[in-house]
C-alpha cells in the first residue's frame, strides 16, 4: 500500500469534513445582499424620473390624485402625516376593479371596517402599503416572493420566522425555488384570508397537493415549538407536543454524540501515548 498517498488523501478528507462542520455551525446567518423591497411608506416626495420608469410611469398625476386641483397647490397642513395612509385608494378601483373588490372580501378590509378584531398593533394595510404606487416595477416570481417576505413580515414577524423555517419558505426564499409556495399563494394577495377554517385551508393545499386530505390541514406550516401557550393560542396543544418531541431528539442527539466524541477523544490520546512510548 502506498502509505504517503493515503495519508494525503485522508488528511484532505479530514480537513474537508472539518471545514464543512465549521461552516455548518455558521448556519443561521443569512447571506446579506438580498435586495430589499421595503416600500417607501409615508413619503410625500415623488422622484419623477423613477416614477416614469415604473409600471404607472407616464400616467398623469391627476388620474389617481382626483381630489387635487392642478391649478391650485394644496395646503401643507397634512404634511406631518403619512401620505400612504391618507391617500384614498378608491382611485385604484377605476383601473383595478377586481383587485379592489377582492380586497374588500379579505380580512385586512374586515379589520379596517371593525368587523374583525386584530391583535396586531399596526393598522391593516390597504393598496399602497404593499404596492408602491409611484415606483412599482414588473417583478419576477422570485422578486414577488422576496417582496412578500419583507412586506408581510413587517406586521407578521412570527409567521415570517416560522415560514422561513418551513420547507416552503426554505426552498422559495433561501434556495430561489420559484415553484414553492409563498405567503400569498396560500393566504391570497387581495382577498387575504387567515385560513383558520379547515375546509377553506384544504382547498388551498390542493392547489399544489391535489390529493390533500382533510387531515393534512392539521400540518402546521407556522409551527412553533414552544411551551408558552400564548404564542399561538389556537395551536397550543400541538406546540407543546412539538416542543416535547424536539426536546427528546435534541437530548438523544446531544447525549449520544457527547458520549462517543469523548470516547473517541480518549481513545486518540491513549493510542498516541502508546505509539510514542514504543519509539
Amino acid at each position, binding site marked *: 500500500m502506498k502509505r504517503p498517498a493515503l495519508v494525503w488523501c485522508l488528511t484532505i478528507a479530514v480537513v474537508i469534513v472539518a471545514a464543512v462542520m465549521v461552516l455548518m455551525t455558521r448556519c443561521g446567518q443569512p447571506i446579506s445582499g438580498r435586495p430589499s423591497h421595503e416600500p417607501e411608506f409615508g413619503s410625500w416626495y415623488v422622484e419623477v424620473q423613477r416614477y416614469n420608469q415604473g409600471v404607472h410611469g407616464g400616467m398623469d398625476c391627476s388620474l389617481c390624485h382626483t381630489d387635487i386641483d392642478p391649478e391650485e397647490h394644496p395646503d401643507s397642513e397634512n404634511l406631518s402625516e403619512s401620505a400612504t395612509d391618507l391617500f384614498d385608494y378608491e382611485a385604484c378601483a377605476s383601473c383595478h376593479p377586481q383587485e379592489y373588490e377582492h380586497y374588500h372580501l379579505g380580512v385586512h378590509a374586515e379589520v379596517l371596517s371593525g368587523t374583525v378584531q386584530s391583535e396586531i398593533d399596526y393598522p391593516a394595510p390597504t393598496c399602497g402599503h404593499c404596492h408602491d404606487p409611484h415606483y412599482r416595477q414588473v417583478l419576477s416570481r422570485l422578486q414577488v416572493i422576496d417582496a412578500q417576505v419583507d412586506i408581510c413580515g413587517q406586521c407578521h414577524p412570527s409567521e415570517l420566522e416560522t415560514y422561513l423555517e418551513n420547507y416552503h419558505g426554505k426552498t422559495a426564499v433561501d434556495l430561489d425555488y420559484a415553484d414553492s409556495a409563498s405567503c400569498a399563494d396560500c393566504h391570497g394577495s387581495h382577498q387575504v384570508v387567515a385560513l383558520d377554517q379547515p375546509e377553506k385551508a384544504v382547498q388551498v393545499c390542493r392547489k399544489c397537493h391535489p390529493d390533500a386530505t382533510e387531515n*393534512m390541514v392539521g400540518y402546521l406550516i407556522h409551527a412553533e415549538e414552544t411551551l408558552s401557550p400564548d404564542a399561538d393560542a389556537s395551536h397550543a396543544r400541538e406546540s407543546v407536543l412539538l416542543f416535547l418531541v424536539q426536546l427528546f431528539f435534541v437530548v438523544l442527539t446531544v447525549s*449520544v454524540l457527547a458520549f462517543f466524541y469523548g470516547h473517541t477523544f480518549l481513545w486518540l490520546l491513549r493510542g498516541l501515548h502508546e505509539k510514542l512510548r514504543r519509539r
Partner: protein
Amino acid sequence: MSETVTHYWRLNLFHRFIHVLVMVSFAGAALSGMALKFTTAAWARLAMQLMGGVPGAALLHRVCAMVIAFYGFLHFIYIVYDIARHKGSIFRGSSMLPRPQDIVDLWQHLMYFLGRRPRPQFDRFTYWEKFDYFAVFWGVLMIGLSGLVLWFPEIATQFLPGVAINIAQIMHSDEALLAVGFIFVVHMFNTHMRAEKFPVDMSIFTGKVSEDELKKEHALEWERMQEDPALMEEARVK
C-alpha cells in the same frame, strides 16, 4: 504485502457489497438533506446548485432513499438466511447481538483509555461495532419511516393527523444530524483514524484481516478458531 503473512476472511462479499450501498446512499442522502437543513448557509446553497437545484437534490435524496430501502430489504433476507444457516442460534459469541459482556467491555475499554488497566480482549464484533450496526438499524427505521411521511404526506394523512408531518420533520432532521455527526466523526475515527489503524483500514473493502490484527483486535475469536481447526481452515485466505 509479504507472502508469509496469513490473512483471514472477516467479511464476505455480501457484507462488503451492502457496506458500499450504505456508504454511497448515506453520502448522497446526507449531502442533499443537509443542504436543505442549512439553507441559510453559503455552502448549502452552493451544494444545492451543484446538485441541480431543489428538484435535482430532491431526486438524489429519493434515489438514495430507495437504495437504503433496497439494502434494508436485502439485509432482512440475509438475517433470515443467517439464522437458518446457524440453526437458530443467533446468541453465539460471534453474533452481532448485544450482550451483557459488551457493557463490561465498554467499561474496561474506558478504564484502559485512562491507563487504569490493560486493553480488554474482544470477540468477533466489538461493542462499538455493534453500536455502529444498530445505529444504522435504528437510523434507517426512524429516518426511513419519517421520510415516507414527508415523501407522501397526502397518503400518510389519510390515517395520521396533520401534526404527524411536523413530528416527522423533527424526527427526520434531528436523527439525520445525529447520523452525520456520528458517522463522519466517531465511525470514521474508530475504524481508520486511531493510532493502530491510521491512515486506513481496508478490511471493509477487501474483507480480509491479517493474523496479527485478528490476534490483537479480536483475541477471543482467534482463541475460538484455535480450538476448532475446521473453522480456522474455512476462514483462512488461500
